[in-house]
């Protein structure tokens, strides 16, 4: 798998079809991989692909300065779950399809640390949805590993209100507001995040109980109907706060209420920008 990757990257760079190639390279720690943004064909040799390539490289399409320039597209190696992030970015007008040369990777599931990544257990898309080039033979779609990806969400839902409050207060207490969850998320591309705004300061930026609670609430709400479940926020959080539970809960509610799955269709209108007459309102007096 790794040498096909190197061949494609080398070809693209040497023919000058793309301005750069974003891929994975050998990590400095066991079980880790580094990202590599190659601009010259020579660097293409370092590209690899193995079971530790859990990073979602789509995050660089909005975060790296000057990566996307108008004349030549940037190539990027994307697993099917990462392609969902690109779909969402195109849908939200942050990218044009022609700016990205997608090298699709069919994927059997990757590891986070030494255990299968959470997002892979419930994954049902193993082959890239759309791509400009593809690496690896097609994987037959098999039932997701675990029966219900929302098991943990349901577990928390069944707690009493007080238990849920205590659970989350204990988690949010660990938060030191390093915003790694924001920086690692491909869909958090705002020029100036609401938490950095001071006039008015809607979200207190200090790491105290009020600040932490409102930060995590607003982050989850801002990703409602947008988060594609790539799990990067969970992985980036060194305090192991189960952030993706909040996003999965939002995803579950939006699907149950409005039957919308994010990251599926670049033309779809995001759920919170439209409405239907028969939307549920049983909670309104």
């Amino acid at each position: 798998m790794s040498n096909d990757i190197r061949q494609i990257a080398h070809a693209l760079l040497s023919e000058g079809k793309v301005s750069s190639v974003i891929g994975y390279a050998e990590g400095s720690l066991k079980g880790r991989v580094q990202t590599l943004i190659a601009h010259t064909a020579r660097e293409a040799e370092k590209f690899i692909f193995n079971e530790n390539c859990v990073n979602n490289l789509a995050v660089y399409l909005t975060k790296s300065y000057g990566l996307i320039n108008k004349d030549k597209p940037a190539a990027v190696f994307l697993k099917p779950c990462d392609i969902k992030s690109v779909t969402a970015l195109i849908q939200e007008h942050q990218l044009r399809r022609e700016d990205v040369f997608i090298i699709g990777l069919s994927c059997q599931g990757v590891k986070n640390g030494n255990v299968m990544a959470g997002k892979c257990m419930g994954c049902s898309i193993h082959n890239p949805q759309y791509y400009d080039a593809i690496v690896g033979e097609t994987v037959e779609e098999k039932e997701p590993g675990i029966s219900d990806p929302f098991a943990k969400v349901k577990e928390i839902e069944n707690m009493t209100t007080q238990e849920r409050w205590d659970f989350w207060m204990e988690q949010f207490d660990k938060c030191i507001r390093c915003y790694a969850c924001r920086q690692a998320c491909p869909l958090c591309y705002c020029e100036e995040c609401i938490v950095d705004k001071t006039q008015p300061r809607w979200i207190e930026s200090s790491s105290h109980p009020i600040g932490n609670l409102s930060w995590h609430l607003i982050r989850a709400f801002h990703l409602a109907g947008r988060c594609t479940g790539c799990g990067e926020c969970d992985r980036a959080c060194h305090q192991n706060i189960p952030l993706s539970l909040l996003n999965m809960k939002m995803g579950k509610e939006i699907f149950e209420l409005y039957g919308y799955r994010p990251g599926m269709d670049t033309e779809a209108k995001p759920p919170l920008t439209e409405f239907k007459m028969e939307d549920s309102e049983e909670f309104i007096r």
Partner: protein
Amino acid sequence: MNENFEPKIAAFVCTWCTYTGADLAGTSRLKYEPNVRVLRLPCTGRIDFSLVIKAFENGADGVLISGCHPNDCHYNAGNFHARRRFAIFRKLLEFTGIDPNRVQFSWVSAAEGAKWRDVVNAVTDEIRKLGPFNEYQKLIHDSFPFRHEDSGAEEISEKEQVENVK
């Protein structure tokens, strides 16, 4: 739960329907509980999640959001957008352990003065039963540990302040 607890309720209402309905409740001299502080906004479409959180952070025990009935919105779609937004963030609050009954929603039209009185009384009653929002008060106290109230930290005298500034 002490009986003489008077809940503090923040109400975000739209100008064209609920605010006018509340005015009608006034002109018809209908009586209701004084616990609600009404904040007028053009439309429920303008009411977003950060307003509700900020209300709780300022000591509200309950939040009431009210606007035009579907299809009656003066801006013809504001309340539809709001309805979806409310449905979602209500679930989020519930998921993080905030009692969803602390945030109430209603449609009150400009002709429904009586309904506005009933909604206010009902919400005040429900929140009074739920009692003060202790969890959030604790958060507020931990995040804003004002010393001078309880420990009487002594005030930096005028002179000293000037020095610090220099």
